[in-house]
């Protein structure tokens, strides 16, 4: 089922989801559109990669996002000046974004654990029994005393919730490295020494 293209897509593109979403949200002021935009960007990237894999997937992803937003702005009749100005500055921002978690959020067990923990309790139970205990859908249904259709429904729900939580950043960030020897950040801290006697 999974093609080489799918594997490429999940390895090279999906790992930037958190950075992509933040990038979109920073520029696009309608929060409700973000998920749509994200999926549109994915579609464009996927279609382009089906023809030829971009050599620099990360830059290509962000360039696609930028173009999509530019297209949308051109088409819409009312454009916020603020959004336009942001868009102008996007070229610079892309490089600085350094999607922190990117390299392999997927390898990070902690991300996994936190995503799991964010599931509603019933979903969590189902995921645990299905994926860790390796029970079949039917066995899970028997164990929890619910019908199989409900297990399947819970599983589908868990999949969506889990994907959102999993791709969201774990909160790590590296500050921009500053030159050595810069003066201390805070001047107002005071220092005193008290001898024991």
């Amino acid at each position: 089922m999974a093609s080489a293209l799918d594997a490429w897509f999940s390895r090279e593109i999906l790992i930037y989801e958190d950075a992509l979403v933040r990038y979109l949200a920073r520029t696009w002021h309608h929060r409700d559109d973000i998920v749509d935009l994200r999926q549109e960007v994915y579609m464009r990237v996927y279609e382009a990669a089906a023809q030829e894999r971009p050599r620099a997937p990360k830059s290509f992803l962000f360039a696609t996002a930028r173009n999509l937003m530019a297209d949308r702005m051109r088409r819409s009749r009312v454009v916020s000046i603020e959004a336009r100005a942001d868009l102008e500055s996007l070229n610079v921002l892309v490089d600085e974004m350094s999607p922190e978690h990117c390299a392999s959020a997927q390898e990070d067990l902690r991300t996994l654990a936190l995503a799991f923990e964010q599931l509603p309790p019933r979903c969590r139970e189902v995921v645990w029994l299905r994926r860790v205990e390796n029970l079949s859908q039917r066995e899970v249904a028997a164990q929890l005393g619910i019908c199989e259709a409900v297990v399947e429904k819970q599983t589908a729900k868990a999949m969506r919730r889990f994907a959102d939580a999993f791709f969201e950043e774990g909160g790590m960030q590296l500050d921009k490295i500053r030159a050595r020897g810069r003066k201390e950040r805070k001047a107002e801290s005071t220092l005193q020494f008290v001898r024991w006697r």
Partner: protein
Amino acid sequence: MGSHREIEQAAAAWLARRGREEWSDADEATLREWLSASVAHRVAFVRLNTAWAQTRRLKALPATGHDAVLSAAGPHASSGAQSRRMPLIAIAAVFLILSTLGVLWLVTAHPGASYRTAVGSIRALPMKDGSTITLNTDSDIRVAMSDTERRVDLDKGEAFFEVAKDLNRPFVVRVGAERVIAVGTKFSVRREAEDVRVIVTEGRVRVERVEAHQQPAAALVSKGSVAVAGAAGVLVQNEALPEVEERLSWRLGFVVFHETRLSDAVTELNRYNERQIVIADPALGSMRIGGRFHSNNAEGFVRLLAEALPIRVEDDHSRIVLHHQ
């Protein structure tokens, strides 16, 4: 074409349905048809499938080696044979593991008890008097509650104390010759090689040094202070409260650095991980870094460093070695 949300719902439904035992070739063909009907279907499916595939790795969680946490689960820790029959217990066990990843784990502490944490875990201990002690990574304490005193011996590591007010029973934390005494306040105490570091975020504590045949000498340390007590005296630094709180980010599973020497940052991070980071080239150690990092994620930390600094990472099983590029 429906909205992306509807498509995602459909993709999830397909993915879940594929888990049925009676999934047939005909079903597979219908799914393929659905997938090729639109790129929107395909990307939604691939996205969910990528995340879902990761849930298999939840199995790996208990293997991360926080044995103290597992053993401390005591009578509730289920044997492997039982866990299959008792999913809820299995799930409870997972929560204990999760607790090592930054979520606080609550147990009721008993007087005269000792508590410890494994490398990388954090543990919150509610006391009967209403106080709470939060143990940081790799720490050891003994607690003794009497009618006249609430006493904690910090034998190793670091702990944060939220002390319930009780004028008749001072709360005393002993670290070697030093004693930190509070009535009702919030502070942390960390045992270092030579010194004791005390950070106060609320109220005031008295830091004393007890030596044989002498009256104890004392210094008062108040909210917003970082005090380092050694043989000669106490060095007290006053800071804005947010900065002081930030030094206690470990309670949330983070470490925060500001223009910190890489060598110091690595030392700090190594407290939380069995797998140690080693700086091979001394010149690297003096570089300064800042940022906010998961204390349990040495690999992620190194990855970020390698993106920003001229560092080559040599990754063997037991440790992560940083070379100058």
